[in-house]
């Protein structure tokens, strides 16, 4: 099936040719030929193809031995090096003409000027908090003129995630289609064991391990003062393992193993190469569709599960009417004047649609900006702690008052409107 093309010589900047005959043959069929299922905006063309050349990768992690069973850009010799840098090196050397720029950083360490430069953002993050942050960042880049969204300011977000043999891929057009926060209820909060079970009524080996992690370690500080339990330190895990065995023996509980201990302490989620390959492929297909308009993109959420045969389910997640992230209108908060600030805080963290981690609440009281409560800075936390037991009335808040809430789940503050109920 060899096709004799005119080799397209493209100058990669250093005068070196990165092309060869037939390189783009498989892809060209989708770019040069009209078809019955293409996107309405698709225009077949034969312009010079260069592939996806400019890719930036952001990752705060370094490579661990346990990554090697699936993260195929890394080798044993790379353990300890930053993932972003090793990945970039590998791809740049394997795919001629591709220029991957690495950023060994947290996504939160980069700002709007960074993210604004991209046509598409793809995420394979390992937490919902991080996803919500990225979601919020792209929402903050949206430009509204007279209440109308400028489509040029939309940067599509393709998000993929996996756990064992399950995975999902979704396409988000910020400001237009369902965002991460619109579907927060799809991710129920992580359930931790009740403290009374851990402290006095263990039944499962997991309870014994949590007892050692949460109660025994802080009490005994086996590796010195201020030394926090590090799940990546085998000596720490060994210590927890031994103490967990002792705890389990007290209650005649079987099943504590080193592997289980590590899994509980590090909250390990099992992972294999295959599921990640499937979801990554699905995401990459969507990047291709969005970049070329060759086909209508996924609209907008696909789940995958290959425990029993192979199962996929594709549906259109709907935007939430009152989404706190992507709707322009401040969300109403209903409380009594006599409610305490603590109740507001609890609502922000416990409500299924909000699930904030440690919200900081400020309000404008008598013309002045007042921090009502902030947890992340110890001095301010001390100063504002007393406010938690004060009523909203005592704090000088009025009906219809706007509260600004900052939290790690979003790069922008979220506006709420206080509505007093009788």
């Amino acid at each position, binding site marked *: *099936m*060899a*096709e004799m093309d005119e080799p397209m010589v493209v100058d990669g900047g250093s005068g070196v040719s990165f092309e*060869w*005959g*037939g*390189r783009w*043959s*498989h*892809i060209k069929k*989708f770019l040069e*030929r009209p*078809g*019955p*299922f293409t996107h309405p905006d698709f225009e077949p063309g034969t312009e010079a193809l260069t592939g996806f050349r400019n890719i930036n990768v952001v990752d705060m992690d370094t490579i661990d*031995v*346990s990554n*090697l*069973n*699936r993260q*195929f850009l890394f*080798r*044993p010799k790379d353990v300890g090096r930053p993932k972003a840098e090793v990945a970039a090196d590998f791809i740049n050397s*394997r795919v*001629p003409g591709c220029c991957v720029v690495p950023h060994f950083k947290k996504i939160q360490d980069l700002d709007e000027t960074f993210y604004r430069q991209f046509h598409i953002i793809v995420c394979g993050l390992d937490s919902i908090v991080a996803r919500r942050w990225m979601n919020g960042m792209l929402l903050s880049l949206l430009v509204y003129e007279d209440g109308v969204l400028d489509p040029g300011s939309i940067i599509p977000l393709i998000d993929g995630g996996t756990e064992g*043999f399950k995975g999902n*891929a979704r396409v988000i057009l910020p400001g237009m289609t369902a965002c991460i926060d619109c579907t927060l209820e799809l991710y129920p909060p992580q359930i931790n064991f009740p403290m009374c079970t851990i402290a006095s*009524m*263990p*039944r*499962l080996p997991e309870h014994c391990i949590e007892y050692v992690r949460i109660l025994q370690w802080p009490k005994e500080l086996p590796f010195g003062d201020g030394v926090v339990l590090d799940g990546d330190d085998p000596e720490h895990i060994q210590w927890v393992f031994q103490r967990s065995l002792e705890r389990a023996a007290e209650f*005649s*509980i079987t099943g504590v193993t080193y*592997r289980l201990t590590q*899994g509980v302490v590090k909250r*390990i*989620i*099992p992972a*294999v*190469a*295959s*599921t990640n*390959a*499937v*979801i*990554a*492929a*699905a995401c*990459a*297909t969507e990047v*291709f569709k969005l970049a070329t308009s060759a086909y*209508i993109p*996924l609209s907008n959420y696909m789940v995958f599960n*290959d*425990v*029993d*045969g*192979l199962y*996929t389910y*594709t549906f259109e997640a709907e935007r939430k009417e009152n989404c706190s992230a992507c709707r322009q209108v401040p969300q109403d908060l209903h409380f009594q004047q006599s409610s305490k600030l603590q109740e507001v805080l609890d609502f922000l963290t416990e409500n299924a649609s909000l699930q904030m981690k440690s919200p900081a609440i400020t309000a404008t009281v008598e013309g002045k900006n007042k921090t009502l409560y902030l947890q992340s800075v110890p001095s301010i936390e001390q100063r504002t702690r007393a406010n938690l037991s004060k009523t909203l009335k005592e704090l000088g808040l009025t009906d219809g008052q706007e509260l600004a809430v900052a939290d790690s789940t979003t790069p922008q503050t979220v506006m709420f409107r206080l509505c007093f109920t009788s």
Partner: protein
Amino acid sequence: ATMAATKASKEQKYDRQLRLWGDHGQETLENAHVCLINATATGTEILKNLVLPGIGAFTIVDGHTVSGEDAGNNFFLSNNSIGRNRAQAATELLQELNGDVSGNFVEESPDKLLDNDPEFFHRFTIVIGVQLPESTCLRLGSVLWNASVPFLICKTYGLIGYMRLVVQEHTVIESHPDNALEDLRLDQPFEEFKNHTNSYDLDSMDKKDHSHTPWIIIVAKYLEKWLSEHNDQLPKNYKEKEAFRQTIREGIIKTDGGVPEDEENFEEAIKNVNTALNLTKVCGVIQLIFYHSSCVCRVFSLIHLPVRGTIPDMIADSQKFINLQNVYREKAMQDAAAVSKHVECLLRSVGKPPESISEKDIKLFCKNASFLRVVRCRSLAEEYSVDSVNKDEIASYMDNPDSEMVFYLMLRAVDRFYQQHSRYPGVYNYQVEEDINKLKVCVNSLLQEYSLSVNIKDDYIHEFCRYGAAEPHTVSAFLGGSAAQEAIKIISHQFVPFNNTFIYNAMSQTSATFQL
């Protein structure tokens, strides 16, 4: 490196997957030898996802030389490999993914091997054939069927992915079901369980004990009372179950003022009444297995299975929970021992030594008795023969205009085109238009041959000419993950493989499985 050090580093490397299929599952992978035919993008992506988790060995069979096109869509070929044998070039870049794996290649076409040395394929744990024409699939399918070697056929064609599993009989003891019902036997309590519940007297307990009694005991106690008052009839319908739940609700301790206390264990009991009263019966699938296969558990026939021995976590103090758990565990051990005795007899009766089936395997079998699965795929010959083609399945799916079945028929038509014209439709731009009619002829002859009165819209015929047999990398990669996991299921006998045809549509990101 010492044996122990290697083992320890493998445990670390494979930790995340060991948590899914265990050390015994990993062992089956490390003893496996996988054959891949054709190191195209699809082929190398599949193999990547088998090499990374540490299969023992692979052998790539491929007579092609690397073309410019190959180097353009295949991560495991470089432009430097253009002109070299594709099997050899791909083996190098796949081998370096994992030093634990032994990579081999045979620079030969599968057709030649089938001509000269079909038994070459007998050595493999599984054969994966990629981008193979129909004639080769049928020939190879027949050889592998007769040798009982599982055969997985994969194809990426434009934005469509296709997989076909061909295995005569594949047994799965550890299917790891997502939502398994508990095996509590509340409807048919065994002796030791009855004795255990009799040791509880809810009415004379202090509040602490009362609130920390396992819900299973609570349901058992109230069920006993119900049966004595209802002529030994279990609550059957919603009304009766609701009445039963009410009796439990009334058992909650009340304050002097008559207000019910907070007893979470009683709430658990009420919540679980519905599933707790499920009748212990052998489900349909398991009955079929016992009746048909050479499985060993015949002694339990169609009455009930060995007790599983596990209970879910529940509100209870440690001692009460552990004691109850032990009652189930010991019963499970007893049942497994009984099965063991019968297995021994059966083995002797067929002249086999009693150690042929290990205690460990019997215990595993008993623990999974409710979820045993057997997958039997029809042969390719059966799928393709006019006499046994699954017309009904095809026609009924084609009733739905959105069904992926149309892609199956198009792939069959395209194969037919290849047979007639020795090429695929629309490979060169100038061919696209003129091949549409030629492909349509193939579609019609296919439908006619199988007497399928279904309609295939012209749009699909146009689209399949447009594809020009392209093998885009992202579609190859999706199949790469899917096929590799199915191969791992076959090798490890854990989790359930698909049966038997899988279609993936990258345009809509949808998929379907058909049994053809």
